[in-house]
């Protein structure tokens, strides 16, 4: 599985309130949520994002609330992958559980700028900055999480297993 796109870059502690403000949480429709993705931190994000683009950010991405609406709105806006130095833990599980690919890689965050063209290979964890000609290696996912991602989310994964051998 691969992703390739242009990079939107943000700093540390991008919280779930700026990813999708609570005032829009009276719906759970991914398309509607995507219309307001990143609104309070980057008004132009929704206008500029294209299918396949990539978000790169600093430490503690997705901190704050447990709203799954945050990764859902990112995924529905067309983003193919989020790369950050670290992720807040609830965001991390939510992203995996809904099948939004995320990678932790400090070096990549340092070596990628907004607007760079970046290619990610999820099987190997290799991140390539096409614009600058540099490559980075992210930690590969544990097997268990790979299976969840391959099934396109936790529930499909559970469904595919007999519930009692969980």
């Amino acid at each position, binding site marked *: 599985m691969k992703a390739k796109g242009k990079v939107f870059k943000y700093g540390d502690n991008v919280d779930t309130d700026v990813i999708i403000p609570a005032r829009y949480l009276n719906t759970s429709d991914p398309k509607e949520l995507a219309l307001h993705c990143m609104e309070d931190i980057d008004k132009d994000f929704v206008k500029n994002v294209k299918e396949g683009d990539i978000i790169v950010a600093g430490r503690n991405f997705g901190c704050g*609330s447990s709203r799954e609406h945050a990764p859902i709105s990112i995924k529905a806006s067309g983003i193919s992958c989020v790369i950050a130095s670290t992720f807040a833990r*609830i965001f991390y599980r939510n992203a995996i559980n809904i099948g939004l690919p995320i990678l932790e890689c400090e070096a990549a965050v340092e070596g990628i700028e907004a607007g760079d063209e970046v290619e990610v290979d999820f099987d190997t964890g290799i991140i390539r900055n096409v614009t600058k000609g540099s490559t980075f290696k992210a930690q590969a996912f544990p097997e268990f999480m790979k299976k969840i991602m391959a099934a396109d989310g936790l529930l499909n994964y559970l469904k595919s297993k007999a519930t009692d051998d969980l």
Partner: protein
Amino acid sequence: MGMTMSQKILAAHAGLEKVEPGQLIEAKLDLVLGNDITTPVAVKEFEKTGFTKVFDKSKVAIVPDHFTPNKDIKAAEQCKMIRCFARQMDIENYFEIGEMGIEHCLIPEKGLAVPGDLIIGADSHTCTYGALGAFSTGIGSTDMAAGMATGKCWFKVPSAIKFVLKGKPKGWVSGKDIILHIIGMIGVDGALYKSMEFVGDGVKNLTMDDRFTMANMAIEAGAKNGIFIVDDITLDYVKKHSTKPFTVYEPDPDAVYDEVYEIDLGEIRPTVAFPHLPDNTKTIDEVGEVEIDQVVIGSCTNGRMEDLRAAARILKGNKVKKGVRVIVFPGTQNIYLEALKEGLIQDMVEAGAVVSTPTCGPCLGGHMGILAKGERAISTTNRNFVGRMGHPESEVYLASPAVAAASAITGKITDPDTILKRD
């Protein structure tokens, strides 16, 4: 190598003798919780995947608290959906308006969280029940759906940071000041993926309400959970509120911690977190002149009896500064009623505050107290992110109920001692 309190609870629920940090486990759940924002997403997933019943109708709790009483048609539709689901699944712990409260005040009050429990909730402040010596953590809607269906959840076993509390808080210093102080010290990702374990002699000088406030904000340091050792104060609370069987866990004497901090509670000053992160803290002596437009007292962090008592004691006989709006929202119907009986509501209303039904309302910029552009609030809630309580250019300062109440009187962030000295 011994285990921390959190690791012991996880091991017991995974049916394992021993677990180690980083290990992936699947564990049995004692309670699965959701609210009116996260449950609709969970229900959709639950139904889409073809599940038809919950694993145990007594171990699922659904609390519509965020946009309730319904703030608009969309919120009403979301609440209707979860109400129908609760009925269909025969969920015993669904709490309708009139009996509900803010989930993290309500669940302990209803006796649904007890020491040794393993609890997940589709709300980040589910970590609150760590105050009772439970392992309790926030998850998302998909985890909630899986939890409701199977009664199990996957966990990566966390390592831990130990906080050894000593001494006794002075004057108006409360759990809120202590946890803001700690977050200021370690940062908003200072405990990322980890447990925060609160132990030591000083714990006995903290009331249950102090402990709920502190465990509640573990997530603001990035922690997976916050947990307190169990003592007589805990057991007394549990006896009053619950008939559920429980198990008391203690950390092993040779448990390994990533870091250990010793904290002298007697040295902590009233503490305020400036915009836009909870770790941006200053003591009350360092705040300077900060004028405010709105004061919010309540939430799952500070909407309990002691919080209202502190606020009412300061407001009583005083008047809210002209031009300042004060909104008080008690955590549950019971708290509301008790505050009425004690005369606290009257004291606060006479001072010029409004008192709301229990709801999350202003805490997340949902309804009942949204900030306009450029406005500033001091709030006893837990997050001061950009746009958290309204316009992206508004500001939120986090503080204790005592500091918030004192600020209501002067119109700027104020040391409660200057209004009413307390030794």
